[in-house]
């Protein structure tokens, strides 16, 4: 939104720079003066919190990589060495491992915020799609990072996840061998995962830049979902109003983060990962990291063949579909009203979807037997029904509540 530029180079050197690389002008426009709706609540601080999370992962990760050895004979011990011997290593390692969980907690909040307030709707479809892409890249990165300590959970996660690709017809087996660099998970697998685990966060950073670019074209959505009409009345400059709000949100977020890292660094992990990987024995209770549980429950729920598709491929289709369907959300939701606050029926279905998602998380952690299998199937079916049936239909049958005429009216009441 360059028309809001108020930058006038102060000194001769700034003027000289501005004519060659207008980086100060750019920063002032996008990081300071950017007009931001004045009614944003704390759910809107999670974008900034996520940037902080990525920063923490990259800084702690680069330091870990200085002490870590990507070799199946030494990887496990090198992580233990980091935790025990390297100066400050205990904290660097726990901030990185806990950081991955906090990163996902923040991204789930960020995604569900977008779903409630309709932030994926026109003109923000590309912004949303880039977000889903970041989510996919994060999953790949976290999965490959989890393999690096080469514990039992690491090795079996690597085995199961690479096998998912083998379900794809025709290219499956060659693809599996390419991912693993062999017939089974071994040293070549660990080496390529380390290489990619180092690379992907920087790819994420690049997609985040596009994500923010796509945000700064239409500007932020807001809790009432009504477009900015009058920049003067409806918005505030990003700095200092939102830099402060975001900074405060970050501090609050760092409290549980620090609690986990300092006092319970292993509480989110699994004891089995402190046993070195043994390709001949699978631990009795295999569960992925908590942030993958809902999708894991969906994968497991499919234990039946359908027509010519076997249960393995079908499970993989549902598993992949549960994430890929998010790409189509902007077109599945047919309602013109963005914010859930003004959609009486959507609101209920939204919370039902949240409960269903939490239920899938719970079910993913339970053994695949008895009632859990049946419930997983019901919740999996509901997950898809929400997107494919409920959202398209709601937009047609629901009568939304009247929208405020402007952001400033919703904040200050009607003008006198």
């Amino acid at each position: 939104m360059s028309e809001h530029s108020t930058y006038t180079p102060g000194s001769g050197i700034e003027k000289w720079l501005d004519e060659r690389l207008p980086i100060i002008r750019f920063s002032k426009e996008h990081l300071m003066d950017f007009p931001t709706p004045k009614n944003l609540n704390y759910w809107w601080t999670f974008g900034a919190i996520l940037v902080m999370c990525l920063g923490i992962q990259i800084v702690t990760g680069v330091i870990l990589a200085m002490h870590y050895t990507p070799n199946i004979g030494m990887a496990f011990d090198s992580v233990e060495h980091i935790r025990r011997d390297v100066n400050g290593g205990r904290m660097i390692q726990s901030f990185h491992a806990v950081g991955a969980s906090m990163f996902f907690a923040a991204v789930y909040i960020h995604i569900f915020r977008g779903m409630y307030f309709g932030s994926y709707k026109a003109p923000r479809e590309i912004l949303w799609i880039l977000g889903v892409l970041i989510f996919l890249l994060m999953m790949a990165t976290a999965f490959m990072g989890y393999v690096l300590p080469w514990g039992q959970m690491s090795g079996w996660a690597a085995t199961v996840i690479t096998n998912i690709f083998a379900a794809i017809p025709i290219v499956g087996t060659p693809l599996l061998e390419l991912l693993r660099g062999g017939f089974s998970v071994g040293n070549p697998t660990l080496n390529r995962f380390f290489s990619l685990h180092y690379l992907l966060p920087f790819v994420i950073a690049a997609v985040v830049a596009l994500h923010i670019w796509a945000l700064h074209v239409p500007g932020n959505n807001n809790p009432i979902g009504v477009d900015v009409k009058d920049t003067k009345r409806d918005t505030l400059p990003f700095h200092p109003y939102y830099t402060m709000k975001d900074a405060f949100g970050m501090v609050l977020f760092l409290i549980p983060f620090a609690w986990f890292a300092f006092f319970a660094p292993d509480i989110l992990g699994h004891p089995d990962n402190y046993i070195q990987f043994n390709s001949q024995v699978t631990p009795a209770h295999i569960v992925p990291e908590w942030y993958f549980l809902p999708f894991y429950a969906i994968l497991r729920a499919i234990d039946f063949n359908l027509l010519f598709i076997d249960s393995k491929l079908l499970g993989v289709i549902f598993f992949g579909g549960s994430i890929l369907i998010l790409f189509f959300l902007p077109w599945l939701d047919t309602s013109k009203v963005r914010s859930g606050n003004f959609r009486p029926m959507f609101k209920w279905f939204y919370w039902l979807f949240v409960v269903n998602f939490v239920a899938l998380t719970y079910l993913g952690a339970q053994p695949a037997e008895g009632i859990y299998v049946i419930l997983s199937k019901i919740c999996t079916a509901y997950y898809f029904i929400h997107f494919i049936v409920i959202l398209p239909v709601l937009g047609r049958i629901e009568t939304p509540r009247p929208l405020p005429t402007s952001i400033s009216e919703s904040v200050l009441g009607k003008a006198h």
Partner: protein
Amino acid sequence: MNPDASTLALASIEFDLGAIEEGQSVTILWRGLPVFVRHRTQAEIDEAKAVPMSDLKDPATDESRTKEGHEQWLIMIANCTHLGCIPVGESGEFDGWACPCHGSQFDTAGRIRKGPAPTNLVVPPYEFISDTLVQIG
């Protein structure tokens, strides 16, 4: 980035069954893959033979999964045909194997009976060189 020659070189191995008592299993490595070698009891063989084909998701007779004259020996790649975990032996509802990862269950002939795995545990290509010596691969 595909498997190199040093990986491919381990394609075939020989294994001596002599020390495995009836009712015992061992897990050996072939091409980096774990392989179950089970010395089945008569009860297990009978149980496998009694299963009607119509009960099976991936129908196969017990005979087709063993070598004639060596029916007590069941040799199979240990990785679950779902996503590759190692099922636990002598467990589950069918007295065969139960997979800890997503709950697949196999019978005493290693055939899939329940859960997301689509097919029976895979019998690798192998031959008896003598009564106790097998060559796998």
